[in-house]
């Protein structure tokens, strides 16, 4: 029992820090509310889709920005998608970079775009690592026979 409550405390602390540091926003909580006995893997499923999508988008963005003549409408289209998907799962810091990214696209500012690409990749990797750590913690709690604490 002691191990479970320790893991649960860890889980609560970790989740709280993710919200406090802006990695996740309320939309992530909304996702968790949609998970229940009939959809026990809902959050992991949605987040996995996000990971797949993001890797593709990052590749597409790198390619688009490497072209001799950059098609900023195309770049913006990818960023718009990235902004949407990150916002849908509550990956707030990724979404925020996308907002700036779109401004640079509108200005056709290549330097700005390239910097944003680096930034958005960085933020994506951070949130991906943190979510994976969170899911591992959840698994540990479940395997130790405990239940995942509900975050309000």
């Amino acid at each position: 029992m002691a191990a479970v409550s320790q893991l649960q405390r860890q889980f609560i602390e970790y989740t709280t820090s993710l919200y406090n540091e802006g990695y996740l926003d309320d939309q992530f909580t909304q996702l968790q509310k949609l998970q229940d006995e009939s959809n026990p893997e809902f959050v992991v499923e949605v987040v996995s889709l996000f990971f797949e999508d993001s890797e593709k988008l990052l590749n597409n963005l790198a390619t688009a920005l490497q072209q001799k003549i950059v098609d900023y409408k195309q770049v913006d289209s990818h960023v718009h998608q990235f902004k949407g998907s990150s916002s849908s799962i509550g990956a707030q810091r990724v979404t925020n970079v996308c907002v700036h990214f779109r401004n640079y696209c509108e200005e056709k500012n290549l330097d700005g775009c390239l910097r944003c690409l680096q930034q958005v990749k960085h933020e994506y990797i951070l949130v991906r690592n943190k979510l994976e750590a969170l899911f591992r913690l959840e698994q540990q709690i479940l395997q130790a026979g405990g239940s995942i604490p509900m975050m309000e």
Partner: protein
Amino acid sequence: MGVISISETPLHVLAVDDSNIDRKLIERLLKTFSYHVTAVDSGIKALEFLGLQDVENFQSFSPNPEEEVNLVITDYCMPGMTGFELLRKIKESKSLKDIPVVIMSSDNIPARINRCLEEGAEEFFLKPVRLSDVDKLKPYFSKNDRKTTDEEECVSSDRSRAMDDDDGGDVDGDGDDGVEAWSDENEQIEKDQSCHHKMFKIEDVVP
């Protein structure tokens, strides 16, 4: 046809979104309210599902009674046919026009919202859509008697309002070229690049 008891048939929502993540989300949100959900990834597929065959030429409507749709909820920004265009096609169709349509968008653009509401959308949700939004859908549902006709039904043959009217000029002889007058709102929509879909060209509007 026999009478179908409303309490037995769950309300059927057709969800339209090109993003797989958002499709999964909206489907889950709708199912928590026990709606029956069909999710498609484009406006064309939505119209096909609603029974509008041969969408390009607006020919032959064949209603699918087992798949009566009580509400359409669609993303605004989609490649090919935007949610606005889908809304318009539904409202222009004699058989589909009474189906309530709700638009979702990640961008908060008042001109866009107004345009959708003016075109007949019941509601406009900002993404990400939440449970509290879906909770608002209840009053909009129609459980209509869809008109079944034996004749082929064409979506309005009046093409003067079509947004991609290549004929240009005064099609129906009423003195204008069928496209609404230029305004700040249109300029805002024109500048609205997020869909990368020109709803109409400047040259069509400004003579």
